[in-house]
């Protein structure tokens, strides 16, 4: 789920710096996941779109390319005026993928 070589490349091979980037991501990601859950519960598509957009770039930096692709699709799905079919499922799937990736990143940061 996570390609840690991406974050290492971003940190120009400096593992300590890469870990500081990962920690910065881990510190900020939980409130965004909470926001995603609440937005789904409140059927707030606009907020899902904004949160998915923000998480998408962060996921790319952290080497979570499949998560980033899913978040991009979620962002597009949530872009409509109403609550489209499949948005709830897609949001839950994004949250599950993010949680798995976060677990892998925690292992990388602690190893």
């Amino acid at each position, binding site marked *: 789920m996570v390609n840690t070589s991406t974050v290492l490349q971003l940190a120009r091979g400096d593992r300590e710096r890469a870990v500081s*980037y990962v920690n*910065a991501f881990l510190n900020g990601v939980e409130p965004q996941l909470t926001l995603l859950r609440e937005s789904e519960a409140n059927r707030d598509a606009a907020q899902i779109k904004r949160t998915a957009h923000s998480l998408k770039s*962060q996921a790319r930096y952290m*080497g979570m390319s499949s998560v980033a692709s899913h978040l991009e699709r979620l962002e597009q799905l949530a872009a409509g005026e109403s609550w489209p079919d499949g948005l709830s499922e897609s949001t839950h799937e994004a949250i599950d993928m993010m949680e798995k990736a976060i677990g892998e990143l925690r292992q990388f940061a602690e190893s």
Partner: protein
Amino acid sequence: MGNSGNLPNPDKRNQTAQMKNLLIFLVDDDAMQNQMLRDHLASELDDATIEVMETGERCLAQLERKPDVVVLDYNLSSRQSSALNGLQVLEEIRIKHPSAEVIMLSGQDKLDVAVEIMKNGAFDYVVKSETAFLRVTSSIRKVMASRKLKRQLAATKRLVGFVIAGFVAIVAFCLIVWFFIPEWIPERRIRLGLD
């Protein structure tokens, strides 16, 4: 032998001189992005002052400090829909401080977005990806190289102007002497019967 690794790198030294007193604004509502990019640029660009701002409104309020480069997020209204977006901020920068170069960062890899941004006067458009920081650094170096060339061109123009003015002054002096002070020129003195 073997101590060449400790010698200063001339390229790096030139870049350092080039980056002296460079003021960069990083404008993004994503704190993680700001922290990572600031860290990256600080390690790549010696003597650059990097200021982080989370809104376009704050960037515009600080424009009087005359930043050299503004690295601006395209989607600044992602967390607060009423906030100015990157394109609006770019337009304001072009009006209020046109000499600042704007590098637009975007999560969208779309050609029409890139075209719109470049049409509005951005120096470069960089997609947020694993190579984004390298591209931003490279873009900032291009800005500085371009400014250095402009400074050299202006200095050359001044020099050429000075040489032309000097030449004109000498010719004018010779003509004045020839027509109005003929006694200074022996041949003229003879011809005019002054001797």
